[in-house]
């Protein structure tokens, strides 16, 4: 039982229940996977050095997946970072990590969230009760409740495209060429090569989730929760309303 799973069963008395139910090793978890082609293990490498912060990925994802207004399956967090008197813009694409050991899955009380045999973590919107437990459990804020369907929503790695032999929308249109998508099971794939050859990092490694979205050039300052001044504008339903009419001085 790995650390994250052990941590999962906290609380007095829970240990017994937990131990009985959560001892599922990742290997067994993999057995529980369904759908998809086990020949593949899809993954993404994001080369942060190449990201230009154009948000093409963000908007493409919205258009491709009909993501409801003011919701985002992916976003390129953009920061001004100043160190040693030198400032730069740090652009960090974020999306679901399609974790190998995803905490969003065990919490799901209905089984709506599951992992395909090719590693893609998806939500069956016909099963989901919209309890949002998975939303809480994801350490990356990758999930949200889709207010149109009233079910959990997140990046699917554009599973419908991948299954059709295409690339995810955000990858196709990545202006900087920062997003690289491919099959970890194929040793010749670009992602496999990068994983072998580069010093890749993941977000929040201490969560033990084993993300399958890797980063080149990930600055440790941005690996976890970012310590800084938050954005002024929070895209949300009331953002539009609260920005009242124009004042003129």
């Amino acid at each position, binding site marked *: 039982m790995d650390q994250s799973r052990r941590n999962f069963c906290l609380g007095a008395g829970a240990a017994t229940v937990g131990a009985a139910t959560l001892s599922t090793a990742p290997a067994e978890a993999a057995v529980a996977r369904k759908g998809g082609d086990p020949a593949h293990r899809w993954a993404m490498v994001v080369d942060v*050095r190449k990201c230009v912060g154009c948000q093409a990925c*963000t908007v493409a994802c919205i258009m491709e997946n009909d993501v409801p*207004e003011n919701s985002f399956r992916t976003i390129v967090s953009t920061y001004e970072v100043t160190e040693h008197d030198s400032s*730069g*813009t740090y652009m960090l694409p974020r999306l679901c990590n399609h974790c190998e050991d995803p905490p969003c899955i065990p919490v799901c009380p209905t089984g709506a969230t599951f992992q395909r045999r090719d590693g893609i973590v998806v939500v069956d919107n016909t099963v989901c009760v919209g309890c949002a437990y998975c939303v809480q459990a994801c350490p990356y804020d990758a999930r949200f409740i889709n207010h149109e369907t009233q079910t959990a929503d997140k990046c699917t790695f554009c599973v419908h495209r991948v299954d059709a032999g295409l690339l995810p929308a955000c990858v196709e249109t990545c202006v900087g060429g920062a997003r690289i998508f491919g099959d970890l099971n194929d040793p010749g794939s670009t992602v496999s090569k990068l994983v072998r050859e580069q010093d890749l990092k993941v977000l929040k490694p201490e969560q033990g989730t084993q993300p399958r979205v890797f980063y080149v050039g990930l600055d440790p300052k941005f690996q976890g929760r970012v310590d800084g001044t938050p954005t002024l504008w929070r895209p949300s339903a009331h953002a539009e309303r609260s920005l009242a009419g124009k004042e003129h*001085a």
Partner: protein
Amino acid sequence: MSFTRRLLLKTTAAGGALAAFAGGFSETGRKLAKGAWAGEKPENAISGNAPKPEFRVDPTSGDIALTPGQIVAYTGCIGCTTLCGVRVRVDTERNRVLRVAGNPYTPMSTDPFLPYGTPVQDSFKALSRFQEKGLNGRSTACGRGNAVLENVTSPFRITTPLKRVGPRGSGRWEPIAFDQLVREVCDGGDLFGEGAVDGLKALRDLKTPIDPAAPELGPRVNQVALITGVPDGRESLVQRFFQQAYGSINSVGHGSYCGGAYRAGSGAVFGDTKQQPHAKPDIANAEFVVFIGTAPSNAGNPFKRQATLVAKARTDGALRYVVVDPVLTNARAAAAGERADWIPIRPGTDGAFAMGIIRWMFENGRIDDRYLSQPNGKAAEAAGEAGWCNATHLVVVQKGHPREGRLLRASDLGWVTLDEKDRYGDKDAFVVLDPATGAPVAHDALTTAATLFHDGTVATGTGDLAVKTSLTLLREEAMRLDLRAYSDACGVPADVIGGLARELTSHGKKAAVNAHGGMMSGSGFYNAFAVVTINTLLGNLNWKGGTIVGGGRFPENGDGPRYKLASFPGQVKPSGLPLGRNVPYERTSEFKARKEAGKPYPAKAPWYPTAPGLTTEWVSSGIVDGYPYPVKALLLWNANPVYGIPGAHRFAQKLADPKTVPLIVAVDPFINETSALADYIVPDTVLYETWGWTSAWGGVPTKMTTARWPVLVPRTDTLPDGQPIQLEPFLIALAKRLGLPGFGPGAIEDMDGNRHPLETAEDWHLRAGANIAWLGKQPVPDASDEDIAFSGVERVLPALKAVLKPEEWRKVAFILARGGRYQNQAEGFEGDRAAHRFAKPLQIHNEAVGTSKSSLTGRRWPGTATWMPPVFADGTPVSRVHTPADWPFQLVSSKSVLVSAYTIGATRLRHLHPENPVGVNVEDARRLGIRTGDRIRIATPGGAELATAIVRHGVMAGVLAVEHGFGHREYGARTHVIGDHRQPEVPGIAAGINLNDLGLVDPTRTGASVWVDPVAGTAVRQGIPARLERVAAA
């Protein structure tokens, strides 16, 4: 309390409680009642509402299976002026664009891009997961490009011709029939119950001079003026109508408020201040680039191509670059580490910075002597150079000499005798010194290097004449101030300037500088001149890794090779003096009159002999003051000067007064800040509905033309013959009603002399396509049936077949199927030189500039790069009028990485980035007690606005950074009522501020003005003096 009262109370309470419960749980109840689907049921259990993929790729063969009901078409984007070729996925049944990405055939969206001959089916393969082709062959649309499809279905679109109700700008319109529109615009009359208005018919007077006393102004037809903005590839038709057929000289684009100052400075170096050629760094191959006032990947043009190349080059390639900018943008990506750097600079002082670099180069012997010393193209070629310049050419410096400031010519030395008209022309050689003999020789007589530096005399028939080489003049200019003084002026430490200069000169020809929007200051022209001169001193033009002018376009509008589109019988050659006064004042009657009166200077308002047309002057002195002559009718097409020019908003009131301009007609899909003031608005179609032939405005080594063709059925109303109402039928109908040549039946002649009609948009654009198809050594191949089937071109095939000849339509289809015509990537360079070179000499000293005079002071402008602080028109430094003590801040503006001015209506972009808080430097903020989120008040001598602050390290001290594209008053920020339909009003569209609302007038001028660069006449949006105060907490 009695029992009954208690019971009553309790029952009431229980009732109330129950009601509260019912209210609170209403939603739950509603959802429960809906059963299994409390929300909307999406298409698919896993992928939700994602439409079916556009095609499927067989994992083993790579074969493509198309998805019925969808097409993938390669067409053009107008999300910004980059005008990329994109691929658009259309749901044909719903006539909607599902998503946009890049066209793999075009360098605008792809690197490396596909060989042009690639079958369309294979292009789809190249985008897919098949053999991971799609990763390397990735073809993209940017964030805006992905969102701009919202413009198609925008609730703010107008779809029918509008005529104003009530006064201009009232926001009330009536929809009118197309015929009525054409009739009223042509015939005029008492159109608004405000008295008679002249229509275009009455105003087309090609003979009567505007002012008999000033014949140079030209005929009255010039009083009809046209402003065009986004050059979306239909300009050739517009010019055919407006200039060649209607006959007015007054057509102007947005250059003067785009990057005009940069282009003017570049034009000075490239020796053409009217066409203003410019070169771009070859990012893919460069080793070191300094971006001074342009922000690749944040803005810059071509935005997306530069972004792609910069990202790749700084990571996988050899590129290191530095962005010199008062504001930190996305251009300096922190993750790129050492490969990207940012150096803050004080606004409007790039000339000091550049001259500092130039001085350092001279002092340290780091100029490219070999390149600079070649007196002509042949010598340069022999010396292994890829271009040449006039560094060695002698300039007359004799004080008071009539030729002072001019380049010495063979005829000046009596070596040739030429007709007056040929004198000082191409046949009249320049003069250089032969280093072997020290004697003057014709520049084209030498086969080797000429003397670079000389300050002395040459003997002429009429005595000795003081001369210097161009480079000597530049060196003197550079040495005028020491590095410290330059550093003090621009705020960049002297050692940083020196260090940069050292780095810049350490990469041979694989180093470059570049500029653009950052030059739009009160010293922009000379700043840009200085910046571009650095490239000359590096000798990097036409070199791989240096700067390149690019391959340019396949011109669609020439006289052939298939159709004569450039000319037609009966065409007018417009004459007269343009409204922008971009001609020498000294040639006007006004000058003569004033000279006779003994005081030739100042002119009533400035003249700009070395500039192209200037919208900046049009909207102020031109239209408002009627100087040099009043405008009777104003046409606007895709332009929004009221929003885009700093300070122009103050003339909105004037424009709204029919006495200022009696007739205003706008052609635009949206109601913008300018067209809101029009009398009539003609609905134009939007991007994916339109035709257009566009190209890159630089930075692409190969020749290219992007084809934009309608992949959607336009959403504007249709005419009885089925044509959608848009620009083209409007122009054609006007032309026909006015009886203009060049339009209607038989208006287009082919190369065999057969005549063809110009009755529809297709009549023009498809024939233009045929011209493109036949350009070059051999025409493009025929489109295969498969190409046609895969590309969605099927949709327009009937039009192709109807308009074009049997041997033509498949070739045009070949182009449309690939979204344009593109020279193959491999042909961009020949070895380490650009295949498409700029062959003319670059100017170290530009005599046209060096001999032009300020029409206010009569003083001559310097002919080389120099450092000149921001000034007003009469040369008064701005800081003397608006002192830093009073106005301690300077406003600058940078483009939003996400929005362009007219994509503000796209909700998906706005939700991502709903406002443009103004960047305030941390130290300044601390001093004024301002925190991120606070409301601040920014005042300039031109106005005051409230804004939100964002406190940043990435803004230089003393600078206020405004992101451009926000602070709208139209586009949906305000309701317009059309007939009885109210357009929605979305406050979010008005969010934030527009720097231009704070733009200045020029206090040294009389009459209407906006602050412009005194030489280039270009809008000043950088370095506007300002004050800042905190108004309220977040």
